[in-house]
């Protein structure tokens, strides 16, 4: 497979996953924003929206660009802004452009699915989103992402292309497992004691709901929703399809398949990251501090992303053909 093709497929699914997770981030933020002010002292200053932006490292960007941070500004920036490369709008466009460039490598249904999403998104506007209700838009984004995932699983042959689509989706999803935990978790400790329990419960359960993970949670845990149980679910539980463990062990498996027995650095990095989630215990993680653990995981994840890129997609200066030619494709 061409390096450029691998790169485009990786980013097509990565952008779709990003669009979906951005919708989930907005969902959890909207839910938390419903919390009465008494429980959320920063509410007046739109602290909940700042936290959402903070998870994306966008606080300064938005403040500079718009001169303010409030619900509408953040929503428009995350959903519609064409100059925000990570807005849902830009993600759908990028996914569709990558697919258009790689029509040969994917199925017609996959391209049509992304093309439909993009054509609908392109015709959307803030006025229409408000008229339809923001929740309908979020549902739509999630269902478009689910549709692409489904069409991919249902129509694409399990070759290299499929593997690169998997890599893009799971590395992005792993990234968000960490970021979303960060949003719901940050500064709950600062709450006044009498409101803390309610606020904590509310935030964590909002996160679970936005991840459609409430049912999974209830199946696994008897105890009430808390930082420890949600963090465990999001990081260490293999039965949660969006947990860091699920994502990293999927990445590890896919990379091993792609490596075909070669010992590649990216396989090692993915294996180490997956082992770290598999063999960690939540009380240890919390005991040593959740924040440093998350930061370390994030750093390893981004190194893995760079290594995948270097190994498979860097097409600029392949100096020598590797002779003899081992790979002969018909």
């Amino acid at each position, binding site marked *: *497979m*061409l*390096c*450029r*093709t*691998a790169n485009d497929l990786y980013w097509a699914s990565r952008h779709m996953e990003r669009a979906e997770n951005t919708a989930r981030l907005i969902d959890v933020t909207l839910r938390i924003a419903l919390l009465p002010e008494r429980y959320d002292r920063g509410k007046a200053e739109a602290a909940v929206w700042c936290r959402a932006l903070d998870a994306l490292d966008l606080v300064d960007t938005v403040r500079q660009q718009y001169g303010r941070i409030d619900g509408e500004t953040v929503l428009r920036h995350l959903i519609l802004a064409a100059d925000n490369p990570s807005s849902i709008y830009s993600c759908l466009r990028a996914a569709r*452009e990558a697919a*258009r*460039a790689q*029509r*040969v490598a994917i199925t*017609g249904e996959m*391209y*049509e699915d992304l*093309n*439909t999403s993009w*054509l609908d998104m392109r015709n959307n506007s803030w006025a229409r989103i408000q008229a339809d209700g923001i929740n309908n838009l979020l549902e739509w984004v999630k269902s478009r992402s689910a549709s692409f995932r489904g069409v991919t699983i249902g129509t694409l042959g399990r070759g*290299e292309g499929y593997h*690169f689509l998997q890599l893009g989706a799971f590395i992005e999803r792993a990234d968000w497992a960490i970021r979303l935990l960060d949003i719901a978790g940050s500064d709950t400790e600062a709450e006044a004691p009498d409101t803390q329990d309610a606020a904590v419960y509310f935030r964590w359960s909002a996160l679970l709901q936005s991840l459609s993970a409430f049912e999974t949670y209830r199946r696994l845990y008897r105890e009430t929703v808390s930082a420890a149980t949600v963090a465990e679910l999001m990081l260490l539980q293999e039965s949660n399809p969006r947990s860091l463990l699920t994502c990293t062990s999927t990445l590890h498996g896919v990379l091993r398949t*792609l490596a075909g027995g070669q010992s590649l650095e990216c396989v090692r990095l993915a294996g180490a990251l997956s082992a770290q989630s598999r063999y960690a215990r939540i009380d240890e993680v919390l005991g040593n501090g959740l924040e440093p653990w998350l930061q370390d995981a994030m750093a390893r994840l981004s190194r893995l992303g760079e290594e995948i890129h270097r190994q*498979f*997609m860097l*097409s600029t200066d*392949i100096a*020598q*053909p*590797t002779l003899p*030619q*081992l*790979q*002969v*494709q*018909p």
Partner: protein
Amino acid sequence: MRNDYDEMYGRDGAVRPHYGAFDDWLQSTPALQIEHKRREAEIAFHRVGITFSVYGEDAGNERLIPFDLVPRIVPAAEWRVLETGLRQRVHALNLFLGDVYGEQRILREGRVPRDLVLNNSAYRNEMRGLAVPGGVYSHISGIDLVRADDGEYYVLEDNLRVPSGVSYMLENRRMMARLIPEMFARLPIAPVERYPDALLEILREAAPAGIEQPVVAVLTPGSANSAYYEHAFLAQQMGVELVEGADLFVRDDTVYARTTRGPQRVHVIYRRINDDYLDPNVFRPESLLGVPGLFNAYRAGRVTLANAPGSGVGDDKSVYPYVPEMIRFYLSEEPILHNVPTYQLRRPDDLKYTLEHLAELVVKEVHGAGGYGMLVGPASSKAEIEEFRARILATPDNYIAQPTLALSTCPTFVESGLAPRHIDLRPYILCGRRIHVMPGGLTRVALREGSLVVNSSQGGGTKDTWVLEGGA
């Protein structure tokens, strides 16, 4: 209304026999249902993304080529003549290309003016003396035909460089089979679906000698190109890689693709980029679309390019008047297909006549393509004609002129309902060990009333083309 030849209705207004079954369908189907099918086609084309980009408009502007529900139907007997004529013409053109890059017999014998060929900007000196695999230069040819008001077919021009549009032939057929499946049961319509398979076959046949399992790739300028959809479509249908220049590199006169598993050798390149951009080392140095070293790899016989560089000298409009002569010279046969009478403005007499009759003639730039740079006299204003006159006088060698042919018409759905619109026909001919003439082609239709310009870049649409089989 002029006295145009209509494909569906005779001069007496009666439906021509080969359109009988379609006319039945048209008469018996409620207007609303037809309208519904037309909408369905439009939505499906949009969703599948069969679009083309238009030069001169915003980058990334993709437009849908309008598709019309009324097919062009060609009776079997007519097609047999066309098929033989097309095979003859493409055969002679390939022999001509081999000759002008080889012995140059036709030039030495004075049958075609030497300077016209050797000083032609499409003539590639770099191709002199090179033996190309199988002697084939134009592997894929598109010959544009029109039917005039006398009912005869004429060749309007030959396309031997990178003829496009074949994806529309295939997609239009797929669409018609979906919208009106019952017609395919009633009429013996020749299938065109085999095209990608035949294309792959002739490309593999063109591989350098000694390669048993040649790797074929389609080389595209990229997704901003107006025909990108077609490049992707053909690569997908053939099951080969679609590559851009940057995906390939040349080492030791061998072409490799950059893949996730390291370099992979490529043996045959169906290139959809022009000669000028193929290789910055040999042709335009500023080209970023091509592959440095590609031409040397080609010269060394390590890779095959289809079509061969320099094929354009065979389809140049200044060479076009000599194609009948080529057929006589190389094949000792009389041409089966007519040329349109052509005035060569490099000749003083022709120039004088043309300047006196600009309002009646069509004037074309010899190297122009896509309907750009031409004057349709009868459809132009005085000012436009005068402006064109100045351009002709500046460089008369650059132009040819032809009588304005009354292109045949075919009923077409327009806003006011069914109305006659002018059409042409581009059949596709594949040249490998054998010459394959696809039974069908791309019918283009000028959607504006009275317009004779069918190019998609000028607002043309397309129709499916049904070649009937059997004795009909």
